[in-house]
């Protein structure tokens, strides 16, 4: 017995019935293909969109919130910033180089679709342990794919973050965040304008690559046959994208476009229907006009192809000639594929025949919406009761060296040095700090960005974990010299058809939404990636936060990890704890233990600590967020980066290794007024010498610490 066509396209029987109801007839082949892709989890957010309304975005400085190609915020004096985050998890597992590369290409199009020049990219990454050769292959392939595409397309990559944990072996996570800058008058829309306007396809030719990527790859789980899905991965061409960026920016500058929409998941189906329905119009599309890579493609293939580096421009008839000339100048492929019509019908023609005629808005507005059942995991109380078995005493020098040798805690420049992170002469604080800081040339303004994820803590307590992420990210931009201004989030989860996964998701959304409201930071965009599951094993819940911070004026001499000097004082700012070891680096690396319940954050304290860090940033040489590895690793990083040792006061080892949230270290010249007020502060010691000394009784040489830290990734990548 053969499977019905709709099931082969990843559509349920109920969804198929809905299509019949909308059309009042059985869909034609091409129509079914369009619905199957547009109603996929990846395109329609059918399992999550009912919950995402929890995120608040109506703040005065938000120009465009979620639901657009990118969120847009106002920076004053006519400047806007566009930001977005996306995932390319499944393609990167099937083909790491191209999967990661096309992830970068895709998000850049989301940014320049808005009229913005993309100015920076960040890549939060998650892999299985590097002890496994296949994980090393994925890690190395993903990093070189990001570098290969990002460097060549001419958009700097300012870092990101990385985690290694067993549950990502079968399903690595490759997220990408992008930032663009534009002036107010450059903001463009995707809403099609008037009947008679011409739809022009710009960019690469349409081929058979990436057919059904959204429905087949991104919206289903993996099993051992996943290798056969490789043809569903798109292939990227950064040179085509670079030309497309320059051509589009010239088209915007000259005011030649009525609207524009990028082609991403679901290709022409998605771009034409979204453009038409956003403008309350219809569109006639002629597939014979599409410039193709292969001549014998079927209508379904052309409509669903996810060939990269394509844009759909809507152009008034008088401007068509000028648009074609710009395309010719930049050697960008071009074809006039459609016409805007009155009414609401998206009609598709091939060989003179109408092969599809559907209400354009039905592809997006009528997509299914699922209220999936959620259930708290039955073993959660057991997990919370299973606190890390702490010893009475530890050998601090040994523990510190083991932590510095961990690839997620050691030097990550093996990654960031493969990325061009200096292009555009804007990078004031480069990768390797808590956040990156960019100047906006010709203004006094600066933007700080931090990306953060913490899947183990989110596994133990998704709500607390998600809140901590938001607060940590906020503190990261604050110690970089900016105030938290906007958030984008990438919610990476397992199979939403499992109630425990849905529970993780709901807890996370609630936690993030709460923390953002406490901080007064809008959520301006996000992405949901479900079905991160291989052979029935779900990933740890991995929400990833991209936090944009804004400073005007930007500190001229912002804090850096390499600005500590002999004799400077080391302070801890923020609450002390000493017993927050659940999902800590110490528990993971030294005890190989995952259990217990992470501490909650007091939002009032968090707000005060973040605000204080941002106030101190213009005048203090070193500010550093305390996170994975606790005080010990945070201080060691300052020592290593500044090339100078430290003498710390005697204190309980638990104080040096626990990971209580929302704290930072300040290193200051003697006599600096830290003006603390109601924020707790504690003296830790003084910078100096060539050892990191823990009280009088134990110490570790700085040069050995440095060597171990530097080799943490490289030594694992050999062989």
């Amino acid at each position, binding site marked *: 017995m053969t499977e019905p066509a709709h099931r082969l396209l990843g559509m349920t029987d109920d969804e198929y019935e809905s299509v019949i109801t909308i059309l009042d007839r059985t869909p034609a082949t091409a129509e079914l293909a369009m619905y199957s892709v547009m109603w996929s989890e990846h395109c329609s957010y059918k399992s999550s969109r009912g919950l995402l309304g929890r995120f608040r975005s109506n703040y005065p400085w938000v120009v465009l919130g979620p639901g657009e190609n990118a969120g847009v915020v106002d920076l004053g004096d006519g400047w806007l910033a566009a930001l977005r985050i996306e995932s390319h998890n499944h393609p990167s597992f099937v083909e790491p180089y191209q999967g990661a590369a096309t992830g970068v290409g895709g998000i850049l199009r989301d940014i320049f679709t808005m009229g913005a020049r993309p100015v920076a990219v960040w890549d939060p990454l998650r892999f299985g342990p590097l002890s496994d050769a296949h994980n090393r292959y994925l890690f190395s392939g993903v990093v070189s794919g990001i570098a290969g595409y990002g460097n*060549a397309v001419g958009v700097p990559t300012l870092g990101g973050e990385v985690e290694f944990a067993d549950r990502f072996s079968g399903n690595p996570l490759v997220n990408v965040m992008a930032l663009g800058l534009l002036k107010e008058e450059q903001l463009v829309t995707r809403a099609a304008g008037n009947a008679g306007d011409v739809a022009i396809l710009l960019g690469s030719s349409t081929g058979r690559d990436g057919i059904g990527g959204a429905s087949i790859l991104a919206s289903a789980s993996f099993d051992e046959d996943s290798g056969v899905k490789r043809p569903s991965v798109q292939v990227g061409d950064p*040179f085509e994208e670079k030309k497309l960026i320059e051509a589009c920016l010239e088209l915007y500058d000259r005011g030649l476009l009525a609207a524009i929409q990028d082609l991403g998941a679901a290709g022409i189906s998605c771009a034409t229907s979204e453009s038409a329905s956003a403008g309350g119009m219809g569109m006639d599309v002629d597939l014979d006009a599409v410039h193709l890579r292969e001549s014998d493609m079927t209508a379904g293939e052309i409509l669903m192809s996810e060939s990269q580096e394509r844009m759909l421009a809507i152009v008034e008839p008088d401007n068509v000639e000028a648009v074609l000339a710009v395309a010719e100048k930049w050697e960008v492929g071009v074809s006039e594929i459609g016409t805007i019509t009155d009414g609401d019908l998206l009609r598709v023609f091939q060989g003179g025949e109408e092969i599809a005629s559907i209400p354009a808005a039905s592809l997006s507005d009528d997509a299914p919406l699922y209220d999936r059942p959620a259930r708290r995991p039955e073993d959660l109380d057991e997990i919370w009761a299973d606190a890390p078995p702490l010893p009475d005493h530890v050998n601090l020098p040994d523990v510190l060296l083991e932590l510095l040798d961990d690839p997620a805690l050691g030097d990550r420049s093996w990654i960031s040095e493969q990325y061009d992170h200096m292009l555009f*002469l804007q990078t004031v604080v480069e990768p390797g700090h808590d956040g990156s800081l960019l100047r906006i040339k010709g203004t006094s303004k600066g933007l700080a960005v931090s990306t953060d994820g913490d899947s183990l803590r989110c596994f133990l307590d998704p709500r607390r974990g998600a809140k901590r992420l938001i607060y940590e990210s906020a503190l990261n931009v604050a110690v970089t010299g900016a105030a938290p201004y906007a958030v984008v989030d990438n919610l990476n989860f397992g199979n939403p058809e499992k109630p425990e996964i849905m529970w993780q998701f709901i807890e996370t959304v609630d936690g993030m939404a709460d923390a953002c409201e406490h901080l007064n930071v809008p959520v301006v965009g996000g992405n949901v990636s479900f079905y991160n599951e291989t052979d029935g094993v779900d990933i740890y819940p991995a929400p990833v936060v991209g936090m944009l911070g804004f400073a005007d004026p930007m500190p001229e001499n912002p804090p850096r990890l390499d600005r500590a000097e002999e004799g400077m004082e080391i302070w801890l700012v923020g609450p002390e704890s000493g017993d927050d070891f659940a999902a800590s680096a110490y528990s993971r690396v030294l005890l190989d233990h995952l259990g217990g319940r992470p501490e909650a954050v007091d939002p009032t304290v968090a707000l005060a600590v973040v605000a204080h860090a941002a106030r101190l940033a213009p005048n203090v040489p070193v500010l550093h967020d305390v996170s994975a590895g606790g005080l010990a690793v945070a201080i060691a990083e300052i020592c290593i980066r500044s090339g100078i040792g430290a003498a710390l006061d005697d204190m309980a080892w638990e104080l040096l290794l626990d990971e209580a949230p929302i704290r930072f270290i300040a290193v200051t010249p003697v006599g600096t007024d830290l003006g603390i007020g109601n924020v707790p502060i504690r003296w830790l010691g003084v910078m100096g010498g060539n050892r990191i000394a823990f009280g009088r009784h134990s110490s570790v040489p700085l040069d050995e610490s440095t060597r171990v830290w530097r080799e943490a990734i490289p030594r694992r990548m050999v062989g």
Partner: protein
Amino acid sequence: MRVAVIVFPGSNCELDTVHALRLLGAEPDLVFHRETDLSGADGIVLPGGFAHGDYLRTGAIARFSPVMAEVERHAAAGTPVLGICNGFQILTEAGLLPGALVANRDLRFICRPIHVRVESTDSILTRNAEVGRVLRIPLNSYEGNFVLDPSALEALNDRDGVLLRYSDSTGNVGDGSNPNGSTNSIAGTTNAAGNVAGLMPHPERAVEEILGSSDGRVLLESFVSSMEAIPA
């Protein structure tokens, strides 16, 4: 002094180069690769990037862009011509400078500040510097490994054509301070006349302290001052 900064499809450092040249008092103009007349230019810069996608081989297609005949004519007439990174690759591909640039020794892209030692001041790129001076300048390339056959290398050394060598922060040259495997640690060269120069590191990324270093200034200032010294 007017500088033509050439834009190929795939160039990406042209705006940075313009920014840096303006800071140093020059008047840069972006010139598209299809132009065939550079008569107003007192100097020419081929900026970094990935001209024509660097497909086939870095610089291999760019050297046939229409503007290149005019660049060659100006080079022969003594106009200062500077190639940075991809521009250096294009100049070697066009035969205006010796050698070639191939993939880095470790087969990974390298983006980080490195040190170079000034080896000769007899060029448009180094005339304001002193021999032995160590500069901290960002390197940003995958194909930055300079190769040259032994006899050509001897000729290059004999005529003092090596301008910059990779070194450590104190000026020692050796394998440990050679980031990409370049022959003889060569980071920058000039032609026999001294008016055409190329280098892999990016001096335009090191002209403001807020970005970490201003050591690139002396190189770009040399270039700007050479336009005044050498009439177009």
